[in-house]
């Protein structure tokens, strides 16, 4: 088991390193941030001096090595725009993103799993078709459209919830639903198909014949057996939610790292872009790792095979 874990850790490290190279290369391709940072009223000579002061005159490989050697020591550089350490800036905006992603995943799991189970128990009925239809729309509808529609309905027309910003629990509702919308649909459909598969298996049929109550079959035997699949899907969705918050955060003016990322990319603040992507890839690798550990806990087959 230890060697298995070490192997996973090694892969994770390679993955983060790869991401850092790609991001560094891309930010270098976008072009010169100096034009974005300085007003037009600056001469070419002064532009060059500014470039040198930021260390951007060095070749990309040297720049990358400097970045990497500092990153290993926990120094992700200083934001050009906010003039504060990148790590501090990102960490200050991180709780908002985590809060939103967790709220969205809780919404997605509760609504997605319950509708999925309902669909699987009564396949082919009106309820099932309704759930299938709504979840199809949920997967197809773009986030920005869902967000604006929710705002128009719940904030402008009904005046029930705030439109934008982060001020208490009520302001979390709409962004969480918007962000969790897609995942809810995915989880719902996956729960349904996995559940149907389990309900069709021999041991469940055996229990039915034995006369086990339906309640016990569904909530004890079936649910337990779809859990491994669900853990995989939920962890994948959580990663999507943490990374996919860019649009939702922009619509709802939610002060998380998604918005910081898009804003930094637009204003030439590349250290922040690099910092956020690096930290996110670390986080994803971590979630992946925890998911692996969860398999051990849930599935005795994996435990015994290793």
């Amino acid at each position: 088991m230890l060697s298995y874990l070490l192997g996973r850790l090694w892969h994770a490290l390679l993955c983060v390193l790869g991401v850092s190279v790609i991001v560094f290369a891309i930010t270098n391709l976008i072009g010169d941030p100096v034009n974005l940072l300085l007003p037009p009223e600056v001469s070419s000579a002064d532009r060059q001096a500014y470039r040198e002061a930021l260390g951007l005159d060095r070749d990309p490989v040297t720049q990358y090595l400097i970045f990497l050697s500092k990153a290993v020591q926990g120094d992700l550089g200083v934001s050009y725009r906010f003039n504060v350490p990148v790590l501090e800036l990102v960490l200050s905006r991180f709780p908002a993103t985590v809060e939103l992603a967790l709220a969205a995943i809780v919404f997605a799991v509760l609504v997605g799993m319950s509708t999925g189970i309902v669909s699987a128990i009564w396949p082919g009925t009106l309820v099932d078709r309704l759930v299938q239809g709504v979840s199809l729309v949920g997967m197809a509808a773009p986030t920005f459209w869902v967000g604006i529609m929710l705002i128009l309905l719940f904030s402008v027309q009904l005046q029930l919830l705030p439109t934008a910003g982060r001020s208490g629990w009520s302001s979390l509702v709409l962004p969480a639903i918007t962000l969790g919308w897609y995942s809810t649909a995915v989880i719902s459909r996956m729960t349904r198909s996995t559940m149907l598969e389990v309900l069709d298996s021999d041991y469940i049929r055996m229990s039915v014949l034995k006369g086990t109550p339906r309640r016990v079959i569904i909530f004890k035997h079936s649910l337990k057996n779809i859990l491994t699949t669900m853990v995989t899907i939920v962890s994948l969705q959580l990663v999507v939610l943490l990374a996919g918050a860019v649009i939702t955060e922009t619509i709802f003016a939610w002060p998380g790292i998604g918005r910081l990322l898009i804003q930094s990319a637009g204003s030439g603040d590349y250290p922040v872009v690099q910092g956020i992507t690096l930290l996110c890839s670390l986080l994803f690798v971590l979630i992946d790792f925890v998911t692996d550990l969860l398999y051990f806990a849930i599935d005795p087959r994996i435990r015994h095979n290793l």
Partner: protein
Amino acid sequence: MSFRLTAKLLLRSTLLLALLSPAAYAVPTGKITIAVPSEPGTLDPMRSNNRYNHTFNANMFEALFVRDSRAELVPGLAESVNISSDGLTYTFKLRRGVRFHDGSTMTADDVKFSMDRATNPATKNPMASFLKAIERVDIANPDTIVVKLKERDGAFLKKLAFAGWVIPRRYFESVGEEGFARRPIGSGPFKFKSRSINEFIELEANELHRSNVPKVKDLVYRTIPEDAVRLAELQTGRVDIATEMPPPLMERIEALKDVKAVSHPTGAVYWVVFNVKDGKDNPVTKLKVRQALNYGIDKQAIIKGVLRGQATQVAGALVPSITPPDPTLKPYPYDPAMARKLLAEAGYPNGLKVEMYGSVGRYTLDRDISLAIANSLKGIGVDVDLKLWESSKWVGDLGKKYYPMSYQEFGNTIFDPEGLMIFGVHTKAFWSFYTNPQVDKLIDESMAIIDTKQRNAHFQKIDRLLHEDASHIFLWESKIVMGVKDKLNWTPAPGDTWFKFWDASWQK
């Protein structure tokens, strides 16, 4: 008596004195919340070049000369200035008893320290180029600051009012650069209360201000990037002003209850920049082609159709809200027949093909406008090969990539055409792709002209030359659209986008 107690007593007695003095003002009450699409970077006034910083700076800090709420240039931390006859020595008499937000008194030392820091290359001040003319700042006596210039600079006071902010030295040195950016202190009408990046900035009335004590107590900027969401926040009453709304939303703002639509000239000129500097066989190096392109665009139709009337057509580079253009200079009319005739004379009887670069997301409706321009030129047989780039890529490539034509803006900074001329027109400028020795010479001469009337006349002369040479396709001065609560009394000065809020108040 402990030190703290003495300080408290002192503060109380000064507050009492301020209240009792005949010039006592009404106590600021109420709150204004403004929804803005983006926000300042660092709050250090010497480290940032972002237009949201300029608004923040204008309310928080003061310079020797400042722009008041009518955007007039008036003495700020200085009481008066004496300019030597050679125009190289500016002697400022400092205003006495000016206090910073922490209650400390502003001294000549603070002024010198701030200006030295602003011009020191080690500061990495993106605005330093505005103070380039400064050679030395000296304290002649505790009430007098003498600024020596390397060369005459006719717009020097205007530049001070834009980039010459004064900060308290003692406070800055005790908290350091990072600490200062976290909790900035100035002497302006508003003082800093709190900030959360990408969320809000809260300011509070500075009741110690000698003359511009704000009428409202709290000023809150909320960053809301989505246009439709800013509008929804205004509609539901959670903000009082929604700025930078796209013109197509004008009618929806007007339809809202208790809200007025305000259309505000920005002082920015929009034009199509020709690259006549480099590029061989480039048709736009020919005068007749440039003139034909000016005649060949139906600018009024674009203003009406795309911008919903939110722009004022211009004849040249000067925009009405900053420098009065020569009234006898008329814009190129829309005349496709004339355009075709000129093209034929230039050797293109069957029209021509030309590349035009445009940004997406940099200026209001930039993509739509670039498309409309290309479409309009089709009418005179000009086939525009439109290259649209995402904003940061477009700017990043500027100066590296060859753009024969590009749709651009040149914004107002110091309420003087100098920036535009030196940095947008002059051959040496980074953002300029135009070259004309006669114009360059006149621009160089403008540096020495301090008198406003003479300056305006001089720039009008340059403007006429540019117009005649069709240096650009001259389009318009833009306006921004805002939704403002009916009950809010607030009128920003034309051309001023560094909104000042100390005169704003709520109707009873």
